């Protein structure tokens, strides 16, 4: 059986091989022009995603056209995909949602708006980007806009050294911002304080605040105890979900 037939038989294409540059295959990608970007935040979709290979229940899978999709009914919320993702591109859906038909407490991620793309529309972020900074399309199609952008501009990807083959390309990306260690070390006092405020407002099980008093011999154990109390308190709350 040829590879193409074998692939077509796998509806979900759990571990589809990377399709970048493979003739006859689609490989959707995104180019973000940071010269036009106002910094509203963006997603990352990888061609060799660690979240897919680490998911224990096959809840996350990679479509052969490059979409990384989530089966909410299979997800147990173990957060392995979040730990595996070098981009923090994955998140847990909130426990309380306005629309009760929506999934809760399961992992999710940007799926390049597959529901729109398969109907011939562009992803929502592309259509709503007020600067027109985002270009989307099939990178294996040499006639597409996204291929033309990649051919004519110098592009960079985020943390490509992690072996993920990311398919979101940036034009005009500053290397110091893209590097996680540099961005951590160079962050301002204001950003540190905002980080602490964010953490203080979260009831997460492991959020450690990095303020001077909180990381000391008294503060650190107190943080650990507080986190554990939150974890235990959550037992009662989870019973109602």
């Amino acid at each position: 059986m040829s590879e193409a037939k074998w692939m077509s038989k796998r509806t979900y294409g759990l571990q589809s091989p990377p399709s970048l540059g493979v003739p006859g295959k689609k490989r959707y990608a995104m180019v973000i022009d940071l010269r036009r970007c106002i910094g509203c935040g963006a997603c990352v979709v990888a061609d060799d995603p660690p979240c897919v290979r680490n998911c224990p229940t096959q809840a996350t899978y990679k479509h052969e056209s490059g979409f990384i999709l989530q089966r909410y009914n299979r997800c147990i919320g173990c957060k392995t995909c979040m730990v595996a993702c070098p981009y923090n591109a994955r998140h847990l859906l909130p426990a309380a949602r306005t629309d009760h038909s929506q999934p809760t407490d399961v992992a999710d991620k940007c799926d390049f708006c597959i529901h729109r793309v398969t109907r011939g529309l562009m992803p929502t972020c592309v259509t709503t980007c007020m600067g027109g900074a985002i270009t989307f399309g099939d990178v294996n199609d040499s006639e597409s806009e996204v291929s033309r952008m990649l051919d004519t501009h110098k592009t960079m990807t985020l943390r490509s050294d992690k072996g993920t083959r990311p398919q979101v390309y940036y034009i005009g990306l500053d290397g110091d911002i893209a590097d996680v260690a540099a961005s951590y070390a160079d962050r301002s006092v204001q950003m540190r304080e905002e980080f602490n405020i964010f953490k203080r407002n979260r009831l997460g099980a492991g959020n450690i605040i990095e303020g001077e008093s909180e990381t000391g011999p008294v503060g650190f154990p107190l943080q650990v105890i507080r986190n554990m109390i939150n974890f235990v308190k959550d037992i009662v709350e989870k019973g109602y979900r």
Partner: protein
Amino acid sequence: MEKELIMNAFHDVYWGVPISIYFWLMGVSAGAHVISGFGWVFGLKKYKQVGLIATLWAILALLIVPLILIHDLGKPMRFFYLLLPFYWHNSAPMSWGTVLIMLYPCMMSIYAYFMYKNNERMAFIFGIGSILSAASTHWYTGVVIQLNPGRDLNHTAIASLLFLVGAFISGTGFLIVTFWIMNIFLNPLKKIRDSFQEGFIKRFIKACSIGEKVEDSLIVEMGQVMAIGIVVELILTLNEYLQMIYGTMEEQSNLYDVLLGAFRVPFLAYVFFAMLIPLFILYLSPIKRRPFGVAIAAGLVCIGIFGMRLWWVLGGLFQQSFY
């Protein structure tokens, strides 16, 4: 606050303190179980007396683990999905880990049963199996967080070795402290043992050697065994430390911003409590041959290794939580 949420700039530490506690309990369980195997598998007669009670502690520590793990899930009621064959995913470490975590207590229970029945041959056979499953289960806890290339602090090949050696010393330390406390309360324990009428419970308590003094020489010997483990742990940590100093920007940032920064308390607790102070007590101090001294060192090791589990799990996720 709104800005960070909208920009998706700050993230939670997904695997938090409960997962650290799970790693610590798993290590204590595996370490205690290996000590139990000294007598019944490796043939050291001195350790036979404590074989059953060591395994019981290992089972007890392991009983807490599923409660923590299942509650940490976003959907706790779906935990059994991990066991369904058609949900099985070969490439996911957690799939294999689930099998190991299921296998380990089963093997341990059968091994404990044959120890109770004093069936040396079967205890030997299941002892080998359960020690292998104990080692592989704890090896898995190192691997599950090691196989994440995005987490620079954890993405190191010696992760599982550090975990295994840490498990061995914390398990041994936990048993030493337990035996020392049991020796202190020897008379009350004897009274409790004698208060039962002849029957299953009394036979079980006797098989566990509860109410019998654990020899001081055994406690001191366990301390020496623990000291060898601490030396190996020290070498591995030194190796990792050197790699971080001479390392890439990520590794240096991990050392200075995480280990010596926000996580300096658990990291220094690990270095001093789990390694340097116990080594001093066990090799150089005047109380090195006394059960009291060995128990102090063992207690410090348990605290220090918990510190290591904290910075290991939380630290790797912490740095990137800003990105």
